[in-house]
């Protein structure tokens, strides 16, 4: 489990991470979400002890990362897949990592096979595509079979098949009881991968909630309606009589916010409007995120749900 407590980092008086507090629990994939420059990478660097916080602290199972003995057995991290020496082979890179934490050599072959790089094990990293480097970075994170994983933008450079692979991998790792923190600025990907979300903007915590709760709370639910006779529908929904927040979208279809589908159906029946489409539509995570940040233009921190 990762515990971040009041974590703050300033560079030249500018706050990059601002009193962040959250937890990454075992058994679920926690998505670390925010626009580029929100402070996601800095937060991860602080957790790993690569930078020193101005205030606050980050703990791994109750202890700072820098005090862990054989940290690769506790936490697997992928920060920058490009931060490698291109002159080494994939196997060579993993061999020194294994040696540093007293991990058995056989783990090198195991993780290379797990990430699909077994055939490229003897190739120099400089010949690797970005996607292959990401896979090697994931292999390095898995080397010590750690109960905590922390991956910064792991889908960068991956093709659709690779993205699907990493999504399945992360969900499987969480299902095994590991704590998984994965950052991304790709909302649709996060909606599919993460059970829980930690959303930050300008270094501050904006939300800490289950993915579905986040969408329920910040996204809108709309009811899309079509009728056989569009004029009658327009009269029903466009009028002021029923106190409905309805707008005509395209070709005679209407969208109604803040009402139950049962009520719309009942109103239509009472007025003799024959509906042939009535569908509940929910905002995507991306739309919910946009609405939330628009609601709090100054990125006011909001209480955790």
């Amino acid at each position, binding site marked *: 489990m990762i515990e971040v407590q009041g974590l703050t980092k300033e560079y030249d008086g500018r706050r990059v991470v601002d009193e962040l507090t959250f937890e990454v629990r075992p058994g679920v994939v926690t998505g670390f979400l925010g626009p580029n420059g929100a402070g996601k990478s800095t937060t991860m660097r602080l957790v790993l002890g690569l930078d020193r916080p101005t205030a606050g602290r980050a703990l791994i199972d109750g202890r700072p990362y820098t005090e862990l003995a054989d940290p690769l057995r506790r936490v697997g991290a992928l920060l920058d897949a490009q931060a490698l020496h291109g002159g080494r082979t994939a196997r060579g890179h993993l061999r020194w*990592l294994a040696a540093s934490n007293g991990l058995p050599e056989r783990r090198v072959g195991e993780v290379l096979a797990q990430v699909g790089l077994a055939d490229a094990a003897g190739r120099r990293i400089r010949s690797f595509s970005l996607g292959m480097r990401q896979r090697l970075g994931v292999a390095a994170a898995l080397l010590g079979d750690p109960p905590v994983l922390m991956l910064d933008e792991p889908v960068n450079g991956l093709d659709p098949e690779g993205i699907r692979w990493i999504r399945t991998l992360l969900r499987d790792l969480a299902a095994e009881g590991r704590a998984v923190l994965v950052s991304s600025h790709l909302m649709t990907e996060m909606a599919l991968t993460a059970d829980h979300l930690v959303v930050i903007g300008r270094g501050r915590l904006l939300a800490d909630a289950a993915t579905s709760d986040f969408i329920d709370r910040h996204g809108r639910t709309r009811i899309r309606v079509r009728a056989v006779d569009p004029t009658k529908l327009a009269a029903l929904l466009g009028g002021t009589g029923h106190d409905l927040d309805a707008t005509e979208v395209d070709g005679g279809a209407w969208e109604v916010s803040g009402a139950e589908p049962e009520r719309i159906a009942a109103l239509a029946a009472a007025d003799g409007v024959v509906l042939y489409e009535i569908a509940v539509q929910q905002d995507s995570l991306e739309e919910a995120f946009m609405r939330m940040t628009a609601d709090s233009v100054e990125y006011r921190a909001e209480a955790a749900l």
Partner: protein
Amino acid sequence: MRSAAFGAFRAERVKLSTLRSLWVTPLLALMLTAGVTTAVGAALGGRDRNITDDPSIGVFYGLNFGQAALACFGILLIGQEFNTRMIDVSLTAVPRRGRLYGAKLALGGLVGLVVGAAGTAGAFAGYAAIVPGAWDGPPLVRSAVAGVLYQALLVVFCLGVTTALGNLTAAMGLLVPTVFLLSPLLSGVPGIRRVVRFLPDRAGQYALRYVDDPQVGYGHWTGLLIMALWTALAAYGGLRAMRRSPTK
């Protein structure tokens, strides 16, 4: 935590053996130190055996070239990690910065000792095979021991300076011209010579000489001690930089 320190050292050893551009530099140093001495001895030895009154200059002629490769090794050992930002990965594997740095110093010093011993032995053997009299004289043991230590100290010195600077390019730009070009050149300039003799390479190389130079003003072993002090200073500067933040 003896085992953890050993793990950090083992990781450095594997890093060295898995990167060709890194392990060729000490090999090159060895070949130059022993080979150039032998080649030059062979070229000159038959005709003029008294090119200088100090045979040690002939014995360690190859070291002038070998030490450049050895310095590059010291610089590259940590410098390539700064350049590729792999230092971040190293620090996630070995988060104790002093331990990571200590492992690098230990490996660099050890390689310097091994290459220094082999290179010095090769240079003496190659020179003596061609030029008689190289084995003569009591300073032989001192000169040989100093030849080994000089090379080990040089690696650690360059490693320390590079870590203190936190940048491969800056270290190359500072160390290579000053140590190998400026320092020998300036030692010929009368006024500056008084200062230049205290530079690490000048002081350290004085320990190799058979013949006393009254203008130097300190003893042979003192010369090596001066170089050792420079090395300790560089290593400490590197440790401070490492503890502060090596990656920003």
